[in-house]
């Protein structure tokens, strides 16, 4: 099929429909409104559910209920709204419910702003709510990648019985790019949802969806069961891309739309004869530690670039284990860095040696 030009928020909505989403529940917030608006129009055409809830808190609990009933569900929001959903997300991880959650990030803290940001990195990659849990978190850099990952993310959520977070920003939500919706994406081997409270108890025992374990021994057992999933994510499902790393003297670490800006910086540096590479995490949880094992000896410095004041840099420090000097360049408040700013930073680092 030919590519179609679509706005990011709408493309992500259509990707969810193509992935067989049964229901969308959500609440308006900028800059993700085109996603629920698209859903309100098109879910109906497919005989599926769209409902605008009274709050983000209600929306995520509707997601909990429908996921518990065995449906494929998706919600979307932006940073302050995602913060409100954290209670429900923690309950879903605890009750082992699959869902896809799209966070079209904007500047914070508080009401913050509405321009693009990556300020929710820590909230996303540390679980976000109470307790010992994580979200499989994907950070696409383009609309094609966002669409492909959303199509696959429903399978990933079902496989792990855990929410998947699609971490994008206002830039990806608002931009238009040509997208091919028919590209093949990996299909995961999924068991039947025999655990679901689906309103059809004929021929089976009752099912219970629950995150309450009053006996500490039971809860510890449960927490360790959850940990196994996160260990599997870390062991087998890290995703990343290495760009121009072969002969690189310095490597940028950047995700999402920031990585895209850095691609231009790398080209500009190349024109000046500077070999700059990039590690682009596609999963921000699990953090792609394996990418750092592949750094060639030629790389003398790491430069972390983010649209925040420095959050992923802590993960880079953990996996770097003190081996290479780590530098940081960030813009926050909704400002997207220009490629030239990063070029200057790279030159500053290299000239400083």
């Amino acid at each position, binding site marked *: 099929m030919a590519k179609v*030009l679509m706005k990011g928020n709408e493309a992500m909505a259509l990707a969810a429909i193509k992935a067989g989403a049964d229901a969308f529940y959500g609440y308006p917030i*900028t800059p993700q409104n085109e996603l629920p608006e698209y859903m309100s129009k098109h879910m109906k055409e497919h005989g599926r559910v769209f409902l605008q809830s009274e709050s983000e808190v209600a929306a995520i609990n509707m997601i909990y209920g429908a996921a518990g009933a065995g449906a494929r569900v998706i919600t979307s929001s932006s940073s302050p709204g995602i913060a409100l959903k954290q209670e429900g997300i923690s309950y879903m991880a605890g009750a082992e419910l699959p869902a896809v959650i799209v966070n079209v990030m904007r500047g914070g803290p508080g009401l913050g702003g509405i321009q693009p940001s990556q300020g929710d990195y820590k909230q996303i990659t540390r679980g976000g709510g109470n307790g010992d849990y994580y979200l499989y978190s994907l950070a696409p850099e383009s609309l094609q990648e966002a669409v492909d990952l959303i199509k696959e993310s429903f399978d990933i959520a079902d496989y792990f019985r855990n929410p998947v977070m699609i971490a994008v920003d206002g830039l990806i939500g608002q931009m*238009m*790019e040509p997208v091919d919706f028919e590209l093949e994406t990996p299909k995961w081997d999924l068991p039947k949802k025999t655990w679901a409270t689906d309103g059809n108890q004929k021929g089976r025992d009752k099912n219970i969806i629950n995150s309450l374990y009053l006996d500490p021994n039971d809860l510890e057992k449960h927490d360790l069961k959850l940990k196994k999933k996160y260990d599997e994510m870390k062991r087998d499902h890290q995703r990343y891309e290495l760009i121009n790393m072969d002969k690189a003297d310095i490597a940028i670490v950047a995700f999402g739309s920031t990585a895209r*800006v850095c*691609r231009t910086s790398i080209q500009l540096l190349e024109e000046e004869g500077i070999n700059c590479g990039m590690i682009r995490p596609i999963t921000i949880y699990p953090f792609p530690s394996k990418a750092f094992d592949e750094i060639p000896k030629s790389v003398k410095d790491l430069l972390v670039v983010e649209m925040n004041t420095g959050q992923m840099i802590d993960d880079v420090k953990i996996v770097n284990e003190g081996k290479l000097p780590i530098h940081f360049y960030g813009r926050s408040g909704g400002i997207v860095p220009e490629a030239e700013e990063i070029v200057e930073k790279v030159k500053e680092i290299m000239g400083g040696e």
Partner: protein
Amino acid sequence: MLDEKLIVAGFGGQGVMLTGQLLSYCATNKDINTLWFPSYGPETRGGTANCSVTISDETVNSPVISKPDSLMIFNKPSLAKFMPKLKKDGNLVVNASLVKDLDFREDVNVYEIEANDIALKLGNLKAANMVMLGAYLAITKIFTNKEIVAVMKEKFTGEKAQFIDLNKQALEAGKKAVETSA
């Protein structure tokens, strides 16, 4: 090699976003890489609305255009905001009906198009953006008016379909304005 970076800027309501989108739709139809990114939120309501459009044979990387090849400027505040960023020898297409008596940079190619006046003569002020687009296409030649009209026929359905003829005339008028001033 085609690698055009354009910023379209003006007031909300002047059709700035649509002007940029038509170019991206046209690129998509021709299987050329493109990226359209708008300013959004309260800024666009009454303030300056703008969009960045990249059209390229290469993969589009940074969505942010720091040094545009061309500018389509619909009002004075937009000129102040974006003219300093324009590349040397870049194209500065201004709606001269609204942006007049200003100092333009001397190291760029300035095209003053009386877009509002031309659109009014055609019977609808709202077509001023298409006059500007027609002028831009005549200068850069990245697409033909015919190709843009084909996109309109695809996208302007229902009540919007009635504007296709007017827009077609506006595109031609914009083209003519450039050709006669050259």
